């Protein structure tokens, strides 16, 4: 496995490295720490940051590589991510999730989530230990790939994992099946509804990906973004895993039609977010 950790010398970037250590990747994992200098004088700051991040990763070693680039941070990250065949890019979230006036996430993160086509992890409030992880699924075919890829990245963690789908549907007809709109995950799976079948398939995929801990399914009803955020807060999750950032091969104008749910969640989530 190959992980790219990006730093601008800030504390937020160190949080990204910290989160990577909490994910429990196998020992043979190769780490590249990428520092991007956007102005003269950054080099000293970046070198210090490299040292601190190496310490967090367990000290200098052959599996850790340092890289320093010059230019626009998001563009440099994209170039390196594409050239290095990485499995995950880790960044720190600048800004505050409850910010009103200022940006809720930094411009580099904002741009990176739109241009990167590999999983990206945005660290925020990283705890001592990952106790619980929430994986969200849209119950569509493309969500299955999110679960496969997400599952592979989470195999090393011992955290409790929950798989959530949010139904925001309302009935257009009086003869619509009402039970579907009241289902819990358990009843949906038992009754074999569309959502229940998807959750069941998701649990299988996560198990096949190598997650050994039991995964708990969850189904909520309401507005998607609000319900995911409510679940994140109520469940005290340490990491939110979502799909949906730019997918290679998808036509650009379809991206324009669809709402940016992952962007909204990333801005408002109180915990770290992994976008598959």
């Amino acid at each position: 496995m190959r992980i790219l950790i990006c730093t601008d010398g800030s504390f937020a970037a160190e949080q990204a490295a910290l989160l990577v250590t909490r994910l429990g990747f196998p020992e043979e994992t190769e780490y590249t720490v990428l520092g991007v200098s956007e102005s003269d004088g950054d080099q000293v700051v970046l070198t210090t940051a490299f040292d601190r991040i190496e310490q967090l990763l367990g000290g200098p070693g052959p599996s850790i590589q340092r890289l320093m680039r010059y230019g626009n941070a998001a563009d440099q990250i994209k170039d390196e991510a594409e050239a290095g065949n990485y499995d995950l890019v880790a960044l720190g979230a600048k800004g505050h999730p409850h910010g009103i006036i200022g940006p809720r996430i930094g411009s580099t993160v904002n741009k990176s989530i739109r241009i990167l086509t590999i999983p990206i992890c945005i660290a925020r409030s990283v705890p001592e230990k990952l106790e619980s992880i929430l994986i969200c699924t849209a119950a569509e075919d493309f969500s299955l790939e999110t679960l496969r890829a997400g599952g592979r990245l989470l195999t090393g963690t011992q955290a409790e994992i929950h798989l959530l789908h949010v139904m925001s549907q309302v009935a257009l007809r009086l003869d619509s099946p009402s039970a579907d709109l009241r289902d819990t995950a358990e009843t949906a799976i038992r009754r074999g509804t569309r959502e229940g079948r998807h959750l069941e398939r998701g649990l299988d995929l996560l198990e096949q990906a190598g997650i050994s801990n039991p995964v708990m399914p969850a189904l909520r009803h309401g507005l998607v973004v609000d319900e995911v955020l409510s679940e994140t807060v109520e469940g005290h999750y340490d990491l939110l895993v979502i799909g949906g950032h730019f997918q290679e091969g998808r036509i650009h104008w379809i991206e324009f039609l669809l709402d940016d749910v992952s962007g909204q969640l990333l801005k408002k989530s109180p915990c770290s977010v992994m976008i598959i």
Partner: protein
Amino acid sequence: MIHFLWSDDNSYPALARCSIPDHERDISDTVPLLAKPVRGSYGALARRIAAKLGLFVVSISIFILALILVKEGAKPLAPLIRERFSVDSPASALGFGWLSASMVLSGSPIAATALAFLDARVLSANETFAMVAGSRLGASFIVLLVGFVYVLRGRQREVSLGAGLVSLLVTQSMYIPILAIGFFLLAQPWVQQWQIQAEGAVHSPLDVVFDPLIAFLTGYLPPWVLFPIGFGLLFFSLWLFDHLLPDLHLEESRLGQVHHLLYRPVVTFALGAGITALTMSVSVSLSLLVPLSTRGYIRRENIIPYIMGANITTFDDTLIAAALLANPAAVTVVLVQMVSVTIVSMFILLAMFRHYERFLNRLVSNIGRRRRNLAMYILLTLGIPFILLIFG
């Protein structure tokens, strides 16, 4: 039998035409964005087009005749409307339009009638504007009533109220600022410049055709009788218009997954406006979404902007009515109505959509949580127009 949760317009017969597919439809990757031509041979297509054209001519003729009859019938009814029903202020006109649309279960005939009242000098421009707005507020009342009956009969609230209640609340929540903007605009001298100014009296060219018929009818009937006849014909012509609907197959378009995927609000807003511009009715426009999902579901994130868009272009038929009356003031009233709805919609969409969406969602949940809440909401929906009519 299929029951629908909304019906706020001239469209009951059209609703019955909707079918439910037996299976989830596949979405092709290669289909165009919206419309798909009807399949079949060229001969069949030509016959179909000819039939629709014929129906269009008949519908529009009956629509014009109905407008003239309502206008002529309204003149002797002016004292009754202004003194007996107290429709002598914008507030009372709002209540009158609201109650009338609730009673006749449709908004379009009431809006067209309001324009005929303006043309007959029974109502002022402000009062007409308020009555047209009232027609929108009352049009969806049936949705609530049917939902309530189903709740009383033991059906689950989630299904009985569903999208219908969302639709109703979107309209109701937007109309206070719409009314304020509309009255402000109508008071501006520059708005009057929108009107086409004529040097002499303006007559609809169709007056030439219908004047002898009106003269014949008034020779045998009391003039006020023309009003109910015209009103009935308005309904009939709008029903005929429904049969002219183009065949839209949203399920085969990129936008056919509104029941699954979350689209940007501005996308579903444009979709709602575009489809309703063709169907001229919010309820028919919504009915086109039904076949998209086997279960008849739609994402609430998608339906709110869809209805906002539909609420603008649903005035198409009212605008046509204003044009057919050849009354510049009537055209201005309808245009101001459409502009006001657009301003409020765009402000919500661009500045506060997430908050608005959350507010509506909470409101729908609170109303649907208990029968008592629902009953109170129905009483308010009925009571407010009465209060406006009596005390306005």
